[in-house]
Structure formats: C-alpha cells, structure tokens
C-alpha cells in the first residue's frame, strides 16, 4: 500500500469537524483517536464510522496498511449485515472498538468495498480499488471542494480520490446534520467547488439563495439524479464564469458520463462510439447500457443501468428508472418494499402500498396507503416508521383506506 504522504495530494488540506489537517498529517497519526486506534488496522476491516472524521482516518489506515477495507456509515449496517460481514472475514471497526471476524481469511490486497442500495433496499457490496475509484485524470486547477456526501458513498470516494491524486484539491467535509447550512459553511471556508445532487442545489437556492450567490464558485457539479435544464440555467445565471458539470455515475459502472456544456442530457453522438479510456454507451429498449473502464470488479461488458432514456433532438435524456421499487428522494434511494415491510410490521396495519409522489425540492417523497385493523393515527404510523427507517424513507403522507383495493386482475395494487 501507499502511505498518504507519498501521494500527489499529500499536502492537500482537509477540513473535518472544524479542524484543518493534511492527508500527510493524518497519515502520520493526527486525529486517529476519533475512530479508535487504527495504527495497526485489521487486515480485513469494515470501518463503520459515525462521521467524516472517522471516515478519513479509515482512509488513512487503508493507505498505510489496511489491505482490504469496507467503509460505510454505521447507520447503514444493521445487526444482520454486521453478522454477515463478520462471517465473510471482516473485523468491524467502530468508534467504540473493534469486533473480530467470526471467520478469518487472507485479505485481498488493495480491495475497497462500497455499500450500494440493492434492488431490494438491502445494501449490497460492490468491489473497487483506489485505482478504479480515481476517475479524474490530467492536471486540475486548484480547488477547495465541499463534500456533502455520506462517507463511503461512490460520490464521496470521487472527492476523496480527486484529493489524493491531485495537488491543490482541498476538501471541506460536511456532516449530514449541517446539510441545510452548507452555504454558510462554504462561505466561511472559502469553498470554490461544490458537488451535489440537483435536489441539493435546488434546496440551497430555495433556502439560502443570496448566500449561495455570494460563493466564489469556479466549479459546480451535479450528479446522483437526472438533471433538468431549469436548474442548469438557474446556476448558469448565478455563476456565468464557472464550469457547471453533470456527472452520471453509479457504484457498479463508475463515473462514466461528464457533461460540461450547460445543457441537460448528453450528446447523441456519444452513443456507440469507441474512445480509448472512455465508457461505451448504448441505448437498447429505452434503457441506457454502459461498458465502463471505471466499473466495479467483475462488471465487464455492457452493464444494464436500469435508467430509462429518451432521445430528443441531439441529446439523450435520462427520464427515470425501469421497473423498480426504488424511490429517489433527492438522491437518496428508498425501497418501497422495505418501507412497506416496516408498515406491515405494525400490529394495527392490515395492508400497505408504498410509492413515490412528486414533491417540490426533493423530486419525490415516499407516501403510503394503508388499511388498518384498529384505529391508529397518521402521526403514530409516521413515528413507527421514523424509528425503523432513514428519514428520507419515512412516508410523508399516509392515507387510510376503508378496504384493500383490488385491481381488475384481482391483484392488490402494491
């Protein structure tokens, strides 16, 4: 493994929990107490972190000697998954201490594991390495990036690897609780580049437009959701001299499409072309297929993305998802099946249907119809869900029906 101090970005500054330190200093041990003693990390480690502080310490440990690393927020890993990880040879490194694996095995050197939302809502492991996550090449202008992403997410790793691989790429980390106040944080820290979902940008303009407009931004990046022309135009008006980019990326295919021309979608001319070092893009039956040089391990050939596309004029637009139970709430993916299961676990719920409903700012929110066995209020059901689901997956409207709706097919409408 390579120590952080030997990497091109060793001198880049990280601002985490209000403290300023470099990759090199971090690698030297500063800040390690946040996530326990990582001077000698387990050879196969699942770092289940509470915040970015723990996450960057885990990165430094991986660089220094952790041969095989999974990094995720602790909230994403329930007890069943924790037990599964231990059976698969992972020691669980948590802020409170390390739990050894139940089965030991040799590490796969350099392997980095990401957790991504599976089709059933249960996170699944995707295999990467620092090399496959480092997708930005060539000389980069100096930037001070705001990183609002959840530690361990693909987009989070994109910012991390950019900073490790290129000098002049500082990172200001944002904790989830500070998300609504990011423009103030960015202004105070002199942030010049921000990456977020279209929803993230819409929320910021809605809540703190004048502060956003005052930011000295040279680079604005959007990803994680389809981008619409309205938000691109709005940002273009506010930052006429900045580069505005839309990135299409997934944990499986990697970052494969980068559009910088201020127009929604990507050029039709990019379909079915072979350019060394670039992804091959194809549309089949209205679905985007990608063969990617940045894909996860084992993802060879054309990957079915599940994203529906529409060709309008000279552009290819991503318009939604193929048949799936995924509800995209501002870039966070809720599983309708998982939400439904939680509702059905309630002793007074006889039946439930869950879907996404178009909503301002976040694109969609989760809503539910229920049939009850005994009276229970909407607020009580919401609290039940809030205790068992991440906030973006909690139904924001619950409608009580008198009876279970039956379609003409005699199937219930779920």
């Amino acid at each position, binding site marked *: 493994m390579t120590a952080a101090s030997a990497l091109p970005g060793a001198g880049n500054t990280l601002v985490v929990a209000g403290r300023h330190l470099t990759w090199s200093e971090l690698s030297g041990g500063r800040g390690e107490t946040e996530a326990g003693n990582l001077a000698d990390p387990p050879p196969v480690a699942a770092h289940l972190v509470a915040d970015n502080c723990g996450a960057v310490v885990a990165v430094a440990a991986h660089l220094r000697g952790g041969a095989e690393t999974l990094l995720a927020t602790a909230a994403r890993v329930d007890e069943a998954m924790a037990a599964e990880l231990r059976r698969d040879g992972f020691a669980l490194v948590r802020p409170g201490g390390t739990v050894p694996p139940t089965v030991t095995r040799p590490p796969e050197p350099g392997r980095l594991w990401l957790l991504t939302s599976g089709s059933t809502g249960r996170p699944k492991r995707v295999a990467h390495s620092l090399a496959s996550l480092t997708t930005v090449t060539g000389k980069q202008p100096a930037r001070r990036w705001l990183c609002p992403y959840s530690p361990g997410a693909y987009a989070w790793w994109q910012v991390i690897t950019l900073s490790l691989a290129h000098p002049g790429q500082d990172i200001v980390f944002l904790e989830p609780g500070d*998300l609504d106040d990011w423009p103030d944080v960015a202004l105070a820290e002199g942030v010049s580049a921000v990456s977020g979902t279209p929803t993230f940008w819409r929320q910021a303009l809605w809540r703190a437009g004048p502060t956003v407009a005052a930011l000295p931004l040279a680079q604005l990046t959007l990803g994680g959701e389809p981008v619409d022309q309205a938000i691109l135009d709005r940002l273009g008006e506010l930052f006429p001299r900045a580069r505005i980019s839309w990135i299409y990326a997934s944990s499986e295919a990697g970052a494969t499409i980068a559009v910088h021309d201020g127009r929604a979608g990507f050029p039709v001319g990019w379909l079915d072309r072979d350019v060394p070092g670039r992804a091959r893009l194809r549309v089949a039956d209205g679905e985007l297929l990608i063969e990617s040089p940045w894909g996860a391990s084992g993802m060879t050939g054309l990957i079915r993305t599940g994203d529906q596309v529409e060709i309008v004029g000279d552009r290819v637009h991503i318009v939604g998802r193929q048949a799936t139970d995924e509800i995209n709430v501002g870039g966070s993916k809720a599983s309708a099946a998982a939400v439904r299961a939680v509702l059905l676990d309630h002793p007074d719920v006889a039946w439930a249907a869950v879907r996404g409903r178009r909503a301002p700012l976040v694109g969609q929110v989760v809503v539910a119809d229920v049939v009850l066995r005994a009276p229970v209020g909407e607020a009580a059901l919401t609290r039940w869900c809030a205790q068992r689901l991440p*906030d973006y997956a909690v139904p924001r409207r619950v409608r009580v029906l008198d009876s279970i709706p039956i379609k003409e097919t005699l199937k219930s409408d779920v």
Partner: protein
Amino acid sequence: MSLLTRNDIRGLMAEVVAAQGKRLPDDDGALLRDIGFRSLDFSELALRVEDDIGHELNFDAPGLRQIASVGDVLEFLDSLQRM
C-alpha cells in the same frame, strides 16, 4: 378549492412538526434550524398545502430568497399558492 390563510398554513406546519414529536413555536421569528425543520419537512408541508388547495405549487419562480424562520416559510407558501 379556496386558498389557505396564513393561519391554515401554520396549522399544517404544526402537523408536520408534531409528527416528529415536536411543537411549532408561536413566534414567527423562530429559526427553522432551531426547530429542526429541514428540506424534507418543507416538501411534506408543500404537499399538504397542495392537497388542500387542489393544485401543484410552482417552485420554478425566479428570485433569490433567504428562508430561515417560520415566518419566511409561511410567507413563501402563501405567495406561491397565489401564483
């Protein structure tokens, strides 16, 4: 359907907050940050307003704004429903 009064919107906002076991302060100057009223909560409130007035709110209206307090939210939604 008819437009909502500012008090009606305040009542809906109180419902959103109450579902989280919290109480909406009487003071319009109370800060959203202090109440823990986040963007998802605002989206839910907007849906409740849409359900009551019977049409979608248009959020694409131009203009920069700073929404930091309960009063800012009430004023913004009140103006949106009239557009």
